[in-house]
């Protein structure tokens, strides 16, 4: 391709274990991060931020969380939006009742609350698996939806939760650019965290449990530990994402903001993006955010009119077809396609 990676020898274990072992990858990643922080804020329009980039960043975080559970630990969940909701309401109440707390502390605490609730609903996973667990998480979804709507204390006796704008060290996160920078930093931290979790002891325990739970138990992985930590960490990510979704993206939200549809959308993202891949969460979320906008634009460009209702139905249909297509043709999703493409390009123009 455009670069050759031969001649890069690793002489220490440290070098062997780094996240991006190839120099060009490191350069590319550094460039990408620099681009995201330094160039994007000046180029992108407010519309682009509010309708594309900000939802993308938060949904990516949530999709990473769900992927840790579904893709890495193999426990299905159809109720993760509810854990996002737990995070959002926890953060709202923390801000409301303990206004002196720094928002970052609030985020982490909200994540812990969501993790606790997630582990509670993850307990059935110790006894049941697969399909049955789907129903148990569905129970979490409907029960928590009801709690959000009915327990008045959660919204401080108002019909909807409307928190004040986020403040960080005297810096108000209110303009699209500031929101973007804040979310990008949070996402970066959590991506690094997830990357390191899945290649460490705990991540390997999850993957062993996913691949064959009985075998994992035989080699000394406690299923209770593996499954509950997966539920906890995954809900933690989703709780933080939920708090950000409510505070930064929505601003004010109704109890139905975290309903079953969002849960299913998260599942869609990780199926399309790639189960068991952090990068996949990025791809899936990007796809999920971009597709509806494209669908709304394309008919106009081609010169025929399509009503918004038709467009949204078409969108749902395409989602459905894509899920089946990806499951049948490439179960590892866009992340796998990316890896294949990259592998091909590494050797190009030689066949091997």
């Amino acid at each position: 391709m455009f670069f050759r990676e031969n001649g890069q020898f690793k002489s220490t274990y440290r070098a062997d274990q780094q996240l991006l072992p190839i120099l060009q990858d490191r350069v590319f990643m550094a460039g990408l991060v620099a681009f995201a922080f330094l160039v994007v804020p000046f180029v992108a329009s407010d519309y682009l931020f509010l309708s594309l980039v900000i939802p993308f960043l938060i949904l990516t975080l949530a999709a990473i969380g769900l992927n840790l559970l579904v893709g890495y630990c193999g426990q299905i969940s159809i109720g993760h939006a509810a854990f996002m909701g737990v995070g959002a309401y926890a953060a709202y109440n923390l801000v409301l009742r303990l206004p002196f707390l720094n928002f970052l502390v609030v985020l982490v605490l909200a994540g812990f609350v969501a993790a606790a609730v997630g582990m509670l609903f993850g307990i059935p996973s110790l006894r049941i698996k697969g399909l049955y667990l789907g129903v148990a998480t569905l129970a979490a979804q409907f029960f928590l939806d009801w709690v959000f709507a009915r327990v008045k204390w959660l919204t401080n006796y108002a019909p909807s939760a409307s928190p004040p704008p986020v403040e960080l060290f005297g810096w108000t996160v209110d303009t699209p650019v500031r929101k973007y920078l804040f979310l990008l930093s949070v996402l970066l931290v959590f991506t690094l965290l997830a990357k390191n979790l899945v290649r460490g002891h705990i991540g390997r325990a999850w993957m062993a449990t996913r691949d064959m739970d009985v075998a994992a138990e035989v080699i000394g992985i406690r299923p209770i530990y593996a499954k509950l930590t997966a539920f906890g960490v995954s809900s933690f990510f989703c709780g933080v994402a939920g708090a950000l979704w409510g505070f930064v993206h929505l601003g004010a939200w109704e109890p139905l903001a975290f309903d079953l549809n969002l849960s299913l959308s998260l599942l869609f993202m990780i199926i399309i993006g790639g189960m068991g891949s952090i990068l996949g969460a990025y791809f899936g979320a990007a796809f999920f955010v971009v597709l509806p906008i494209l669908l709304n634009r394309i008919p106009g460009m081609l010169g025929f009119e399509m009503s918004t209702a038709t467009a949204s139905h078409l969108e749902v249909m395409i989602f459905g077809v894509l899920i089946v297509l990806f499951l049948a043709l490439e179960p590892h999703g866009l992340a796998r396609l990316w890896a294949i493409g990259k592998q091909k390009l590494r050797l190009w123009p030689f066949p091997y």
Partner: protein
Amino acid sequence: MTSKIPVAILGAFLAAGLVAPLATGVSAPGFWFEVLLGGLMAGVLYSLVALGFVLIFKASGVFNFAQGSMVLFAALAVARLAERMPLWAALICAVAIMVVLAFVVERLVLRPLVNQDAVALLMATLGVTYFLDGFGQTIWGSDIYEINLGIKREPVMVLDNVFQGGVLINRDDVAATVVAVILVGALALFFQKTKTGRALRAVADDHQAAQSIGIPLNRIWVIVWSIAGVVAIVGGVIWGGKLGVQFSISQVALKALPVVILGGFTSVPGAIVGGLIIGVGEKMAEVFLGPPLVKALDLAGGGIENWFAYVLAMLFLFVRPEGLFGERRIDRV
């Protein structure tokens, strides 16, 4: 021993849910009876959806998340077709549509995914759900439609000499129950007495063994999905006739999931009994458990029935994961 556990649970549940409100004298027995009947009627509807679910799971091992969407799709088809033709013709057309759908699903979803694990298949039916929801609303429209079954709306007063004030029963509920009973009877006959039915049972028992004695697996899948489609039509028509055909049907139909958990994934009687238990349980909980709960916790209204079934199923999973009538599963390495 094993057969006593579900009976005991059932007994305890019935005692707690049904008799307690009566014993505490919260309300008149007539009202209690009315709630019970309402619950049973709702339970019949859940049973109908759960039935389609169980059939598919038995024959193809697929946990069909799309059953609710199939109900919605079928109901939409009948409602819109009935605007242009008599109801019986619309029903026949709808059956044809569901059979075509079964063919398509078998060819495009099940066959490419054969031998995948159950979770992948579940996600594939999630894709089918999305597709059917979008497709149904694109071709049939997304308003609320009516299905006129020609049944009078006014409720009938029965048992007014037994209870004070009598008990009100809707005619369409009675019709629904009758139809459900006929349907279950017909399915039982079909499964027990016909050659195809025997083949279906053989496939349900053991895919490989069935295939090795010459039962065409693919055709069996089409048949089973078609039957599930017909069951979806029945459920959709009854439901649509009662509440109007609208998008929320596919969400309400999700309650078939706790029903099959309770009854057991592989049991047709389980689907019926589970449906009735869930139907009665959630109505009872809503009426008798809801108000005290709202008062005690100062909630913004009841609505327990939205989650009661799921939480009940979840708790039940701890006690008996295979359901009331399901087969105990033993993992072998």
